């Protein structure tokens, strides 16, 4: 990063905000993760379909600001096709970097997409472990 703080959103953030990838919910999802809440102004939900050990489908829905929508869209693009182990290694910073940066004050509040993905994987694992219920939020 340069000396001056980023002003506004990068082109990539705007692209993912305007043309979000993988929007929606997977009907028979193997795992669902929800983070944030409407009180804070951001809520994200990620659902995944797993075959073998690989994420073959992933969808998101977001209530929130531009970066909340863009980060969720980006994380679905990053995680699609990865193994569960690989997907768990995706961090918040990875998402921000792939989006060519986020304005500083957006780094914490609306960069929750990696957390939502990890929740979805936890939910998947909990179901695999024998419980038919999803993991608690």
């Amino acid at each position, binding site marked *: 990063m340069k000396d001056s703080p980023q002003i506004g959103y990068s082109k990539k953030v705007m692209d993912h*905000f*305007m043309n979000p990838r993988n929007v929606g919910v997977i009907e028979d999802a193997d795992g669902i993760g929800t983070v944030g809440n409407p009180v804070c*102004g951001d809520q994200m939900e990620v659902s995944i379909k797993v075959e073998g050990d690989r994420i073959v489908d992933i969808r998101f829905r977001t209530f929130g600001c531009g970066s909340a929508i863009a980060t969720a869209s980006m994380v679905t693009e990053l995680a699609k096709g990865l193994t569960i182990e690989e997907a768990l290694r995706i961090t918040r910073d990875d998402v921000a970097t792939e989006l060519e940066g986020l304005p500083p004050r957006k780094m914490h509040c609306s960069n929750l997409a990696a957390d939502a993905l990890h929740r979805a994987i936890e939910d998947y694992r909990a179901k695999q472990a024998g419980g038919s219920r999803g993991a608690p939020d």
Partner: protein
Amino acid sequence: MVYLDHASAMPVDPRVLAYLRDHGDALCGNPSSLHSVGLAARRELEAARGRVAALINAPVSSSIVFTAGATEANNLAIRGTAERNQKHGKTIAVSAIEHISIINPAKYLVKQGFELATVPVDADGLVSPDVLAGLMTPDTTVVSINYANDEIGTIEPVRELARLVHEEEHRYLHVNATAAGGRIPIDVQSDEIDLLTLSSSDLGGPRGAGALYVAPGVRLQTVMPGGGQERGLRSGTENLPAIAGMGEAARIAGGEMEQESRRQQKIRDALIAGIGGIGETYLTGHPRLRLPNHASFRFGRIEGESILLNMDTLFGIQVATGSACTSQTLEPSHVLLAIGLTHEEAHGSMIMTTGRDTAEEAAPGVIDAVRQTVERLRALSPL
């Protein structure tokens, strides 16, 4: 492009720019200089003072103190009056929906040992005279209530409130008229207002000038000591080009107010009717007692910053929001919380403010753009 964020910044009226070009020679001197160049500047300064005084029917033009903007005028009004009158009391009462440039000087005074009473508003944003009467004590010296609110458009019953404030001697009413100035008729004499803030930019003048009306007999002290300009209340060489522009903007606004407000009110009513017809959409602020150029809403299940971005990027329409996501503090607008909205509700707010450059024909397109924006964002929302 349809610019609907005039409460944030107004384009300078082309006639004001023409005035500044035509009077350029007279605007370069220092009004304190005694030579001819200084006297020409002094004449411009006093002409501007007279024009601003006329807009609010001030009894004498010397009751107008020019500042560098509304924030400075608000600081002078709140701090200058409270500090000057502290032998009469040390409590200030400020409405819950005041601008931050009033709330923060009030908080500064609290650190200096003053008491602060926050005057609540109802769900439409109105200050109730009964509530205000119940809150004031003999210790209260300054009461600050906005003439109209820039985020929800609600116009306050200023005249009625002024009567209550004046039931006690040495108690002064400050009115921030930044949003109302030039849009609705203001008469500081019949409204019995002691101190009133105006902003050049909100009248269609250049930024960098504001004014505080100080009624004859009201005592306050400066918050900017120095060379003693502006009757000693605001030192510093006057920003004459901005002030002259403010004067011309006030003259134009006063002359056109009736027809221009009627015209913009039609656009406002079309926006309120059209956008209000979208599902889970609610007007914020008073349905009738509101500024003629102001339409504000909240939408269920979506967030304001993404509304703003979508309107701008997809439709070239600029709006504002009180959502936390656009504020430095990451807190939703204190105005929206004060009218009783939950955090979740406040996040979904959108504010539209029209100006002279807004065409009546723009309304149907704007309504359609809002409808499409809301539909797109709701399709993304898990709520």
